[in-house]
């Protein structure tokens, strides 16, 4: 909304799960974006379970149909296909920047672990997990690139090393002092807005 008001060539993108589509604020946001033709991309990560609740207890219609109900387009994409997701997002962004309003992208995928560490996910049939394990998006993209003669093993090793280093650094960092908990509730001084989208805390700055 701010981008549209300021006539900036930017769009906002938001991610949420299949369970979220049952909430009122999802529908309020979709309706609002449709009414004002806002440059927004709604990405529904449909991983087929909201905690333990399967899709047939979540909605009575295909969720991508929600977009039409609010006056804009929706597309269902194989959420484990990196290039398909990129293309759907690229096209949605182009529409947003052209003033053609929001897009709902339903990324169909699967959660490969429980809702949280404590959850053994036994409510999901084993065959379903295995079926989706075979569709691992990183493996698929690596194979696709391999066919084009690109070897991604170095890149994979680089990413794994970066993650390991970050985990090590986190584990080596001291735990915070308890007194810190009662600080930083209110901002004092001039707010620092997100600006051009490169948030100070995102790791993408400078």
């Amino acid at each position, binding site marked *: *909304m*701010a*981008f549209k*008001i300021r006539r900036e060539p930017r769009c*906002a993108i938001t991610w949420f799960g299949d369970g979220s589509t049952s909430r*009122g*604020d999802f529908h*309020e*946001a979709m*309706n*609002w974006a449709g*009414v004002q033709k806002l440059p927004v991309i709604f990405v529904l990560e449909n991983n087929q379970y909201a905690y333990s609740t399967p899709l047939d207890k979540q909605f009575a219609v295909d969720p991508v149909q929600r977009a039409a109900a609010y006056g804009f387009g929706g597309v269902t994409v194989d959420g484990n296909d990196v290039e398909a997701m990129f293309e759907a997002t690229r096209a949605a962004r182009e529409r947003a920047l052209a003033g053609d309003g929001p897009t709902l992208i339903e990324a169909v995928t699967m959660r490969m672990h429980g809702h949280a560490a404590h959850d053994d996910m036994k409510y999901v049939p084993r065959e379903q997990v295995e079926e989706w394990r075979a569709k691992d998006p990183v493996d698929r993209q690596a194979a696709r690139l391999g066919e084009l003669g690109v070897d991604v093993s170095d890149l994979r090793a680089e990413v794994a090393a970066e993650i390991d280093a970050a985990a090590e650094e986190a584990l080596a960092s001291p735990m915070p002092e308890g007194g810190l908990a009662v600080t*930083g*509730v*209110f*901002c*004092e*001084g*001039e*707010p*620092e*807005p*997100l*600006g051009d989208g490169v*948030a*100070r*805390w995102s790791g993408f700055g400078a």
Partner: protein
Amino acid sequence: MATMTYLQAISSALRDEMRADERVLLMGEDIGVFGGAFKVTDGFIDEFGGDRVMDTPLAESAIIGCAVGAAVVGLRPVCEMQFSDFISCGFDQLVNVAGKMYYRQGLAVPIVVRLPSGGGFSGGPFHSQNPEAWFMHAPGLKVVAPSTAYDAKGLLCHAIHDPNPVCFMEHKHLYRRVKGDVPDGVYETPFSARIAAPGSDLVVICYGAMVEVALEAVSDGLDGASVEVLDLRSLVPLDDDAILDSVARCSKVVIVDEANMTCAAGAQVAALIAEKAFEDLDGPVVRVATPDVPIPFSPPLEGAVLPNVERVREACRELLAY
């Protein structure tokens, strides 16, 4: 300087802030073309346009949510809830998103949520509430409640400048009944208490519409007792020093809330006094508030539950005689 109603003072704050800062925009139901249910933004759309005086869908959660999004990319949204009661539909976005964003992510959310609140005009249970305590209990939100036209403008300007989410409790019953001198242009009233009437025998601590009630209650009928009226103006932050100073000087305390009694702002004031000023007290802390019932539509029933001049005066009389 001009004499204005409380409502005109709110309009004046919004208009002056919008003229001074193009980041300020207004969002709400029926606020644009129609000028707002109470006409606070009457004519604004002609001066500032529909992008800055935005008629939104009837969706309180989305109003607050969009305001949060706009605020974190640099705008200064002022949201109007048509009635404060409707904020319950936007609760999650205000309490869980706006109030906690800075603590979680270091991302300030400079929004103001205007909440036309209070009873006294047969608005019934969905158009008469005083929900300020809901937000006092939610970390990260500031809560202010003016009682005069001067403070309505000054507190609203201050709220718009504040880098945090501020709940601005504007009392509907004061909109056209209260008048006062209001300076031209932007000025700020600090988020602190003020002595509305000085005294030394007893202090009535109150805010919002109850300040007028208290001032009338102590103006006569108390056998010449010197009664102070402390107008809190701000509930978060609460002006502990001003409260404790009044208690130290007056030793007897009546706390008046128009809100329902349990866990109201006055309960927090009473707890503060019990903890920090026990030795200063010369009698029990007395509270006058609306009992824990929805606000009735029927005029005699509403009149029976809302605090009024007679109830406050009676509470003062009894405590003075203690």
